[in-house]
């Protein structure tokens, strides 16, 4: 009996549909709370090739919602570990793992190799980047985002339909992560599973694809509603004309007279302006510590305050810095305005 017998029995799938699934290529950007359940169902359904992209490593605090990962995976790269687990689930699926972030340099090249893109990211910059690259490569993408107990879901750039910029034209720097707000594991589970369902409908060319609509789900209130969205042709034209530009979201820091050390990776946003802001990622500190002033107070920050604390430990214990102050709560607490 075929592995896919139970879904082939559906008239919406059938042998032809299964053939379409086996020939389809899906890229999952962000293998986290949304990407894990989505990947498991797409692999189960027998999608031909799955790309798994994530530059992050598994943390113990991920396990309550990122259901692909186990305790023994903590500290290992998510894209690689996900690939290993999913290969055991279905050896007929081909996998490619990317242990790097999606950037304006690699987006078009990677996205053009897939048929549908599933957005499992946790920041606006990458969502706009996926949107613009998909628009230029003419690929549909399935969007989802969560905030505490609520979720948003839509399929963008599907069959000449609206894009993410048609709903939210303006970039915002209000990245608020699950780390900061808290989330119950089931919510990204629900949204990620709905994303997988949309991907399957897009591949099978069947049913009502959630294009031109934004679905809003409130898990605590057990309520949902669907908002109709229209195209904003001027937003689409602008991207077609200008292409992808690196999304640098500027910000000013309070107390511009102070020295700051940003220990985040170079792609992390927002990017503070100012001559007294040094950018040295945590992993480069041991090779670049000489650039840091040691005779006046320097405020060290990252996204949440965790990496900067580690950075100070390293700089203090290994290189004798005693002038560093941690910005508790991360960059959001020192942005001006």
């Amino acid at each position, binding site marked *: 009996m075929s592995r896919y017998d139970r879904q082939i029995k559906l008239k919406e799938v059938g042998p032809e549909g299964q053939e379409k699934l086996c020939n389809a290529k899906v890229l999952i950007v962000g293998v986290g709370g*949304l990407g894990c359940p989505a990947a498991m169902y797409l692999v189960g359904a027998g999608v031909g090739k799955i790309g798994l992209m994530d530059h992050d490593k598994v943390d113990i605090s991920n396990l309550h919602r990122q259901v692909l990962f186990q305790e023994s995976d903590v500290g290992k790269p998510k894209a690689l570990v996900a690939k290993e687990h999913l290969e055991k689930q279905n050896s007929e699926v081909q996998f490619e793992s990317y242990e790097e972030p999606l950037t304006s340099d690699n987006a078009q090249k990677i996205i053009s190799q897939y048929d549908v893109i599933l*957005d499992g*990211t*946790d920041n606006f910059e990458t969502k706009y980047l996926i949107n613009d690259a998909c628009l230029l490569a003419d690929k549909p993408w399935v969007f989802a985002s*969560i905030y505490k107990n609520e979720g*948003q879901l839509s399929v963008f750039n599907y069959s000449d339909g609206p894009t993410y910029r048609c709903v939210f034209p303006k970039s915002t720097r*209000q990245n*608020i992560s699950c780390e900061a707000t808290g*989330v119950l594991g089931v919510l990204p589970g629900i949204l990620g599973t709905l994303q997988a369902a949309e991907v399957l409908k897009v591949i099978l060319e069947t049913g009502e694809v959630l294009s031109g609509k934004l679905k809003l789900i409130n898990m605590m209130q057990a309520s949902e509603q669907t908002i109709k969205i229209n195209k904003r042709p001027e937003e689409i034209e602008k991207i077609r004309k200008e292409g992808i530009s690196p999304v640098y979201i500027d910000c000013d820091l309070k107390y511009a007279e102070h020295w700051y050390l940003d220990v985040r990776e170079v792609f992390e946003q927002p990017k503070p302006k100012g001559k007294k802001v040094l950018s040295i990622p945590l992993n480069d500190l041991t090779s670049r510590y000489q650039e840091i002033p040691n005779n006046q107070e320097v405020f060290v920050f990252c996204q949440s305050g965790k990496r900067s604390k580690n950075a100070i430990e390293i700089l203090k214990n290994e290189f004798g810095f005693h002038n560093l102050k941690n910005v508790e709560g991360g960059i959001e607490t020192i942005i001006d305005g």
Partner: protein
Amino acid sequence: MKVTVKYFGLVAEAADKSEEVMELKGQLTASDLKAQCLNGLSIADKDSVQIAVNQNLDDKINLKDGDEVALLPPFAGG
């Protein structure tokens, strides 16, 4: 006229409610009502909040009695 305003995400949080019925006087567009509802709320990026009237994304429409207005901030979590 009476309109129902629904709040989502961090807007609901800042307003400390998910829904309210408002009594409005005179002619107002959806974006006028948004400005009125968000006034005084601590939301850093009010421009990014979108407005739907009767489940249609639209900020320019003139409101009428019985309308349902939704204030939708973008979410980024995953």
